């Protein structure tokens, strides 16, 4: 099952496209990092997936073919929006009760227990909570709905490092316990490296990279060699070239078995390095081939 599947998806605000020609299939059972610079269209894609906005072009479905915003999609997807909007004049207990009243499924007991564990008093108004507490409360509310997909939009932007760690620990516990799929956007790459196993790179409203992190890392290498010999690599799939004095660093699409030219050294590449290289080269792309995507679509239709 694909938790999110988009084809030719586009969203225009006035005259500018926030998202364009976005075709992507995100399989279930992953922690998906949606990465891109500010204004790349991350929030737009997430808002489209949770049904808060309507697409200007193309289609998007969730949870295996459901239209976003339909009752089945609303039941199965929990969304924590950017800056975790909560009702400032309501207490934590009120937020629990309110969210419980609005959902078919809500695990009140575990949510209350989780808040006690976090040391968030139930009587406290959300407007008086710290940024970390607000984020944890919003996440607790989302997880208590026992969603099949958890969508988090820049959840850690306002948090200090400790709060970020605690927040991601809660998310990863839910992944381990309930097998919830997670789709989270962020422009802070470092914090995603530890948790995400699927990467989608958005740049200027288009999908640039999409795939499992392990596959992406296995199919890219960092080559270091004399700067004068860079030309030798012409014609090969080079993503990004970084020159330093006499030495050049090339991020190339190659597996560990591919031969290394004489005089060059090959290193495995990290997720952050890979993402940064692609972000610096908006023209480059690493997407699942058309054949592969068609397979996914066909299995969806028949299933």
């Amino acid at each position, binding site marked *: *099952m694909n938790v999110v599947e988009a084809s030719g998806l586009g969203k225009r605000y006035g005259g500018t496209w926030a998202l364009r020609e976005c075709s992507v299939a995100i399989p279930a059972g992953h922690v998906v990092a949606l990465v891109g610079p500010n204004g790349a269209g991350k929030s737009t894609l997430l*808002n489209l997936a*949770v*049904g*808060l*906005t*309507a*697409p200007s072009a193309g*289609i*998007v*479905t969730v949870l295996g*073919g459901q*239209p*976003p*915003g*339909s*009752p089945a999609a*609303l*039941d199965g*997807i*929990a*969304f924590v*929006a*950017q*800056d975790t*909007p*909560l*009702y*400032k*004049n*309501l207490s934590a207990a*009120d937020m629990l*009760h*309110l*969210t419980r*009243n*609005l*959902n*078919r*499924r809500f695990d009140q007991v575990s949510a209350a227990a989780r808040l006690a564990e976090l040391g968030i008093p139930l009587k406290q108004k959300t407007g008086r909570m710290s940024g970390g507490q607000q984020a944890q409360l*919003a996440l607790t*509310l989302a997880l208590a*709905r*026992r969603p*099949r997909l958890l969508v988090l939009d820049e959840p850690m932007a306002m948090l200090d490092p400790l709060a970020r760690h605690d927040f991601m620990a809660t998310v990863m516990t839910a992944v381990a316990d309930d097998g919830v799929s997670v789709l989270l956007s962020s422009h802070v790459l470092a914090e995603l490296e530890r948790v995400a196993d699927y990467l989608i790179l958005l740049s200027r409203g288009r999908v640039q990279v999409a795939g499992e992190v392990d596959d992406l890392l296995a199919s890219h290498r960092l080559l270091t060699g004399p700067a004068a010999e860079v030309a030798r690599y012409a014609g090969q799939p080079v993503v990004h070239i970084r020159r330093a004095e006499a030495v050049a660093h090339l991020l190339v699409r190659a597996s560990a078995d591919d031969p290394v030219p004489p005089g060059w050294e090959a290193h495995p590449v990290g997720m952050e390095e890979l993402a940064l290289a692609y972000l610096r080269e908006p023209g480059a792309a690493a997407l699942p081939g058309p054949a592969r995507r068609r397979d996914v*679509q066909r*299995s969806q*239709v*028949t*299933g």
Partner: protein
Amino acid sequence: MTALIAPAVPARREQDASLRPLPWRRMAWVTWRQHRFALIGLAALLGALAACLWIVGLQVHHAYTAATACRPTSSIVCEGLISRFDGIDNVLSNGYVLQAVPALIGAFVGAPVLARELETGTFRHAWTQGFGRWRWTLAKLVALAVVVAAAAGALSVLLSWYYQPFFRPYFAGNPMSLTTESSPLAPGLFALRGVAFAAWTLAAFAIGGLAGMLIRRVVPAILATLAAYAGLAFAAGSYLRQHYLTALLTSKLNVPASAWIISQRWTTKGGRPVSLATLSQVLRQGGPQVAGKGGVPQSLASWQYLVQHGYTQWTTYQPASRFWTFQWIEGSWLLALSLLLIAATVWLVHRRSGLKRRERRIAVVRFAAGD
């Protein structure tokens, strides 16, 4: 393929079993919790207003009873009591101050319902819950609409009682009391009594809800609601209401004091209209006892003088007996307008999700794929 589907089906059934139904009444608590301060404020405001009306109203009623029970009516004591009743004339008497009440209720309760969610971003929490955005909007607007209309209805019962003495004849034998002030249909007081007050409050609330959705900011939405309400109330009072039923036309002077005079004009015997300037010229010829202040025929004597000289006064009016018919007409169109505005608001909320359009497109894609 079968291997892929097999584990998915029991898993989904298991999840569905834990799903509870989502009845509409679940929104009652949500609505109360979110809008309790607005509703408590509303109750406090209306309570204070009711207390004022009750205290002043008792004085009005006592003064009225004293004035009408006084015999003989022409004595100095009685005239004193009557002028005391007239003297009660306060800010409430013409009703224009109280007409602001529905507008304020609509603006301060109705406008923030959607505007606050959109302004603070909390709609992203509310509209992604299982209840669904259009059901959420409909439940909130209808529940609050019923509450504000009921509260306004209760206040209007008190208002009707307060204004009762003003609509009873107390100047018996004074045929010239053609003032529109004491007509139950007159613009100032008509909307405060009967079903109109609740209907106007409902309309103001519905305007507020739609303004909030369109403007998406609380303060501008409140201001827009007040402006829209003022425009609608002015249009209804000045232009619309007099056409609910065909107005009556008479050339006689004995138009009941309680009638709502819409227009008066003078004609010659031939039926040609006469200007006021001509009339005052005629009156001036009649001497000082018939020429009123400014030359406008005001007294019985001047009226009789003009009739004797071949002029006819045509009065267009709505009789007071049409009060309840007018109330129901006004109540009905305001109710229809409110329902329309609420429906439009819910439709706008729903449309922004684009669900309908998308569902259709997905169906087309599936059909094309041979599913």
